[in-house]
């Protein structure tokens, strides 16, 4: 399973360079207000989850998409959308960590490790329910978040079903497009309600997912540290899709219980495919740039997002 939790490289400098410092401060304030208003039974776990250093790349994508179409201040409705996307994102992290049996994330204990699995699962449900409540009467946003929840569910089930199989780059594109791709597609649609940037969002998510895959192989622990789990579980990452074209590596990848030696050989084969994976990511980044130039009034903020995302592979 892909753990896209932390986004190194997306710091205050990016937020400031895109001119969204005030909006991000407002978003942090809204998150704090929301947690303070939650049931006291849930509050400690929520504080643990939400103060753990998110760089707010999804909210940033919402704001950048809005600004690339319409000049002027970010409306209040979009701050709420940003709050809810951050809530949904954190729900996916909690569930991912339980499934991956990850003891830590962003350098601290995961929610289920600290509070137990029952608490973590119930808190994730609470987050989603309250996310919808936060949206109030914003019906288009409700429809978009419903689409996101369904697509994320399908993507995770599909990714699990297709593990340890001899598949290709096209299969990887399909899985990643529905997983991280759908998250950023929805961000783009929340930011620009004409949906003109939907495809751009999908490509940005695909790029993010691929950079994470490559970053994991490079040992970029800060990217979320999902590499070891993906390798163990036989998840189809971008380097995996390229490496298993070799029949010998393909056979090792498909073993239900690979030995440590097998995993070592597979990891080495993945590493050997990094230049090819980087070339594939360059092509996806170029597709995203083309979309931005074709459909945004001011593609500047979107091109900056693509460039920053592309650097995440290390």
């Amino acid at each position, binding site marked *: 399973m892909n753990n896209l939790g932390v986004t190194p490289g997306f710091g205050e400098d990016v937020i400031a360079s895109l001119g969204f410092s005030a909006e991000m401060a407002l978003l942090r304030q809204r998150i704090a207000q929301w947690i303070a208003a939650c049931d006291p039974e849930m509050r400690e776990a929520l504080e643990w989850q939400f103060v753990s250093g998110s760089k707010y790349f999804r909210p940033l994508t919402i704001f950048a998409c809005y600004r690339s179409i319409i000049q002027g201040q970010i409306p209040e409705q979009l701050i709420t959308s940003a709050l809810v996307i951050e809530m949904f994102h954190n729900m996916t992290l909690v569930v991912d960590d339980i499934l991956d049996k990850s003891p830590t994330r962003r350098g601290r204990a995961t929610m289920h490790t600290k509070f137990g699995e029952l608490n973590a699962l119930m808190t994730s449900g609470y987050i989603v329910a309250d996310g919808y409540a936060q949206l109030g009467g914003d019906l288009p946003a409700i429809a978009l978040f419903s689409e996101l929840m369904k697509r994320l569910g399908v993507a995770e089930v599909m990714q699990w079903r297709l593990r340890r199989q*001899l598949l*290709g780059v*096209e299969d990887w594109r399909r899985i990643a497009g529905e997983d991280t791709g759908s998250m950023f597609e929805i961000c783009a649609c929340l930011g620009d309600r004409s949906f*003109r940037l939907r*495809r751009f969002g999908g490509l940005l998510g695909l790029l993010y997912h691929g950079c994470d895959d490559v970053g994991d192989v490079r040992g970029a622990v800060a990217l979320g540290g999902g590499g070891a789990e993906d390798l163990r579980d036989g998840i189809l990452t971008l380097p995996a899709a390229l490496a298993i*074209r070799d029949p010998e590596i393909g056979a090792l990848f498909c073993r239900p219980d690979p030995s440590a030696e097998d995993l070592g050989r597979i990891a080495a084969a993945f590493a050997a495919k990094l230049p090819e994976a980087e070339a594939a990511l360059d092509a996806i980044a170029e597709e995203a740039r083309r979309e931005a130039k*074709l*459909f945004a009034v001011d593609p500047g903020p979107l091109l900056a997002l693509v460039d920053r995302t592309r650097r995440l592979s290390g």
Partner: protein
Amino acid sequence: MSDPATNFLSGIGELYLQGLQAWQQAARAVTEAGRPAQPGPRPASAGPLADLGQAFAAMSGNAQASYEDHFADATGGGAGETMSALGQAWMIAAGSALRYGQGLLDVQTRYQSALLRAAGAPSDRVTTDAFRGFLREVGETAEREARRLQFELEQLGEKIARASEHPADPETLNPRPYRAKE
């Protein structure tokens, strides 16, 4: 008296058929290139895809010339604004059709070696993946161009709507091609 819109339409129709013919010829040539060589002289050519690229470039030039022939003078007439908008719409549509053809050509060029490999050998997983990528990109090219066409026509529609809400000074909108007697 000739109708500029009808003439332009007919011109675009001819160009479309020419493009289609060029595309079919190129596709045939690519297919034949995957087969064993036949005896006899081959026609001098820089290659089917290069020929097709030239055909698209020529079509683009012809479309512009056809637009200028039929619509350039119409903007000064009584129904100038409508004719101008109609002309722009047809130019957008024609440009879109040409870009679509060019886009398909780009995809074909990028995947040409993989497609030729697929034609001459039993398929393996690498070839199958490449073929699936080719099919996906063909579909994406059509989908992207459709969105682009829709976007450009929407922009034109908004421009016309704005112009009708705030009409400019008639004197400057349709300047008379002659000087009034003083």
